[in-house]
């Protein structure tokens, strides 16, 4: 989660290894490393492996056939479109919030940061119910929306809204520590030289934060694409209409269409692995620059 935290080079040589009990430390070290690696293989690697093993168990042709089913294709399309709407909105919010918090002093800053982080700790199902109670027929705006013939619940609009909710902390969280650490001297210099706010952001701030922004966006996209609980409450799960890819997986799985479910799951797994790869690359860049 924290971005600048990972710097393997910092592991200092074990001081204990030179002590009187050096030998036990060495073998203890080996036991701990082995235990960690075995558990990781069993707990984290095996679930990924089993997805691909199952998806390709009947060969590539069968895999392709289960992906190109119209319902699955529609789910992929819907997931992509809704995420493509939600993620940019979230980027704008993330940059704005990070700018306001990092560049200015104002009372209530800590409260604001806590408010931003709230969605992290809330169950997606609870978030879904909360949205239902705003825009659903019995919700706060239910009557008003019905009078004006506007439907939000059980449409892609609702999917976008809950995606915005569950992903809202991601971009800010990556930008804020970096922007706070960098201070605002460069921006202030640009401002005194007469640059406009937008010029300052584009020419001075953006180059400094682009990797963190990219990373936050990647995390945000991964979460938006993969969101299940909140989307399953507000989408209505209408087959071939409001099912996103994670919901489609559940549907196929419950239909005993294992091949289809695993094929769909494997596409999302590939996205997750790419996310991790981008994260590793960006962290190395940030680590190298700093």
């Amino acid at each position, binding site marked *: 989660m924290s971005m600048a935290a990972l710097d393997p080079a910092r592991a200092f040589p074990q001081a*204990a290894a030179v002590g009187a009990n050096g030998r036990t430390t060495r073998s203890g070290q080996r036991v*701990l490393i082995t235990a960690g690696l075995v558990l990781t293989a069993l707990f984290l*690697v095996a679930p990924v492996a089993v997805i691909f093993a199952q998806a390709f168990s009947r060969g590539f042709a069968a895999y392709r056939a289960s992906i190109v089913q119209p319902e699955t294709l529609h789910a992929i399309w819907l997931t992509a479109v809704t995420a493509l709407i939600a993620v940019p909105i979230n980027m704008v919010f993330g940059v704005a919030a990070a700018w*306001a918090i990092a560049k*200015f002093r*104002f*009372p209530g800053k800590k409260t604001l940061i806590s408010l931003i982080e709230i969605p992290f700790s809330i169950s997606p199902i609870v978030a879904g119910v909360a949205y239902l109670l705003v825009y659903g027929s019995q919700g*706060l705006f239910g009557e008003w929306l019905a009078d004006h013939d506007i439907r939000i619940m059980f449409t892609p609009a609702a999917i976008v809204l809950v995606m915005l909710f569950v992903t809202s902390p991601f971009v800010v969280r990556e930008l804020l520590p970096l922007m706070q650490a960098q201070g605002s001297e460069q921006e202030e210099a640009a401002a005194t030289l007469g640059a406009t706010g937008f010029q300052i952001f584009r020419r001075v701030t953006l180059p400094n934060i682009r990797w963190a922004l990219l990373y936050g966006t990647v995390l945000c996209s*991964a979460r938006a694409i993969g969101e299940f609980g909140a989307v399953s409450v507000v989408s209505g799960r209408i087959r071939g209409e409001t099912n996103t890819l994670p919901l489609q*997986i559940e549907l196929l799985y419950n239909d005993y269409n294992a091949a289809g479910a695993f094929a769909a799951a494997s596409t999302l797994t590939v996205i997750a692995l790419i996310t991790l790869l981008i994260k590793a690359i960006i962290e190395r860049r940030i680590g190298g620059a700093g």
Partner: protein
Amino acid sequence: MTATVIGPLHSDDGGQFIPPPVMKAVRARRVLPGFGLTMGLTLTYLGVIVLLPLAALILKSAEIGLDGFWQVLSSPRVLASFQLTFTAALIATAINAAYGLLMAWILVRYDFPGKRFVDALVDLPFALPTAVAGVALTTLFAGTGWYGRWLEPAGIQVAYTITGVAIAMAFTSVPFVIRTVQPVLESLDSQIEEASVTLGAYPFTIFRRIILPMIAPAYLTGCALAFARSLGEFGAVIFIAGNLPFKTEIAALLIFIRLEEFDYPAASAIAAVLLALAFIILFATNVLQARWLRRREAAS
């Protein structure tokens, strides 16, 4: 976006966030533009996207009244679901407390082949959609699966039991403990440890007496976050749980079932309890961190 929608909570918030006299003082000191725009955007977004729905949930569940609340929550099925959710989340947190500490330790202190790879892999549960995790774990632990095929003849049933629920919860919250403990462990001053080695302390004594107290606040925060996440987890759990009422039905799923029955009051009551629990855990970890920061500042 629905920026024109102004709920009671939102307008309230915008009005009270910065009292005018302070605003003037702030403006006098700053050179940079964009405070009004970015703060306005931030508060509007938070108001519409985060606070409005949560306020609706609180308002709607308050409409039920205490009696209604009690009626929903005291039903045996709801009680059973909360008991299962709590127990499984505790087991999941215990698993993560052990596994997370081990991983944070070996990733910070030791060098081994594939370390970078393992370090990246630790974030997998956040990147992998929960539904995918649920399908994968169920496949592994089902009777014919890679694990179930060995465990079930030995009399260990994981899929469709509370153990399965706990394992799914543990999987989705793996990164919390590791990622909170790791930076603290990296920043520890090695001098105290070296001193205790020269004084002849055993490695385990050093760990228990010196390292553990220093990483304790981060460790507890990580565990609390993992617990909070486990309480609310839905996607990964519903596949492996089997979802038998009174046995393997988690609270989040019961909310979903009540919604499908159009029993909105019951759904909002259970959801309000989960929301309250999340807030309590969030508040407790914030207090814990604040106290820890103050103590550290006082020490330095």
